[in-house]
């Protein structure tokens, strides 16, 4: 049972299009976010020790995706030194809920290796839709 109070919002007019038809601008913006996050993983995650969590996001202007924003985030593993979690998050249009799931977990090199694999972006897009759907 979802116990959120969502006001001001009427999703009756939201139209959905089939998966994979996400518009070009969104796709280009997502490329930028992926590229920035890769850069920051390389620079900001140390082999061991503390680092600040960070994220890169894009504002969603696509009416077909039930989300205000989408982000890729990197969180320090609070239980294993030197490890990090790569997350994908979707912000509810009413901004009060963030739905997220983990893409990968491991050391800096392992995260980059995962992100460089073929099909990484497709996986991110698939997850974004699943997360946005979880609000409905």
């Amino acid at each position, binding site marked *: 049972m979802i116990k959120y*109070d969502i006001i001001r919002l009427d999703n009756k007019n939201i139209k959905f299009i089939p998966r994979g038809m996400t518009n070009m601008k969104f796709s280009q913006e997502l490329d930028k976010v992926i590229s920035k996050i890769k850069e920051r993983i390389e620079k900001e995650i140390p082999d061991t020790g503390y680092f600040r969590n960070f994220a890169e996001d894009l504002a969603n202007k696509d009416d077909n995706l039930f989300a205000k924003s989408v982000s890729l985030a990197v969180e320090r593993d*609070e239980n294993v030194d030197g490890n990090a979690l790569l997350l994908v998050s979707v912000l509810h249009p009413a901004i*009060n*809920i963030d739905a997220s*799931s983990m893409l990968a977990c491991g050391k800096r090199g392992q995260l980059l290796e995962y992100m460089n694999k073929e099909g990484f972006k497709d996986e991110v897009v698939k997850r974004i839709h699943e997360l946005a759907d979880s609000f409905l």
Partner: protein
Amino acid sequence: MVSAGVIFKRFIQKPEVGLLVNYSKLQAGERVLFCEGKIKDKIIPKDFAADLGTASIQISRDLEKHFPKAQAQIKTVFGNLKSVDKIQNRAKGPVSIAPKILRGVKSGEVNSFESAKAFILDGIGSRVITKSLDKLDKKQIKNMIESLKINNEPLSSKQKILLEKYIYQRKMTPSEELEAFPLFEKFAQLLIEKRSKQVVDNLSLSIIKNRMIKEGLTLEQIKKQGLLPDDLIQRLKNEKIEPLEVTLINNYRGMNGLPEFSSRQIQALRKVTGGKVIIHSRADLADYEKFPRTAYSKEELKEFAVKPSGYRTAQMNIIHKDGTLGEIQFRGSYTNMIGEYEHIAYDLRQGKNTLGPIFDNFKSAISKLTPEEYNEYNKYLEKCYNYYNRLELGLPAIKPKLPRKFDKILSEESMKKLHDTNEARLHKLKEGFKPHFEEVA
């Protein structure tokens, strides 16, 4: 009543609570639900209401069949823990199922019997209620403040003073409160984890065990990916672990409340559940800008705060071993108590009116509140939740008072009294009661 050969009856699930059913369809064992075009101009025709009732009874009967095994599974995972006070389980009854299916029909998510069944995610509901911690003395609190570190740095003198004021609920300016709350949250993290450690450990082991069985995850992979700490890996090797599949996690809390599980525990659960599990949270609760380019103000977040009344619980959607959908809620015993009646005000404001005559004066007082007054009233309820949570964590706690402008019947004490009186009344009515069908006049 007989209409074109169809017999309608009313199923009385418990005293004062029942629903209309198509008795002919129920007797024939027809498991169908045609929804298309049934609701026009928000009007629910009697035939369709009876079909909903029939499907609800059939789904409920299925749940009842699966209930003993599901109950045993939850008890196996959490029942032996010293930190657990009690475990409650229930199979959702037809009277609760029917309005939920109706919501699904209206939103387009339910269009058949099977989709109706799949829509009841909390068919088997379980609550794991944890014990409170012992009350902390002043010396223990002082030592905790002294040893607290945030981002690897000890607190400054100013931060220590602020935190102490917040812990002891001394008078503060709103800006001081805003500054002190994140410190308080870090301070309380250790207590939250102490209280829920056993539950989270067993939950993690059961989730990992499920992944080992279903996904072929190996012990080597678990070690390599750092999914479990060493002590849990040892337990995984040595103990018989009951598997459990989790599909969604919510860690509900109010605007100024603490969560049931700490962010560190949620992160640990995120790792063990893997990528398939979705976690719902509040973006502003991350200790970094999760959406740095998305502008929103604290005020906007307050307005959209998740459960303004302060409802707090860690809640998970699960799939039981036999495939039955269920939900587990984790909460402390005081939170469980206030959660039983806090929702009454919310339900009434939403137009739900299934309360007995004992609540008439309460209903009247709630209906008279303006939206602004209702917001203020929610703030009072949130303070009550936070008060009880402080007791659960062994922290100093001052019981909030209902602002004088409100009718006394709206106080938390009064709500508890009404709830308890009503429960006693229903308990008496239930003596010798058996669910049954009544003829429809």
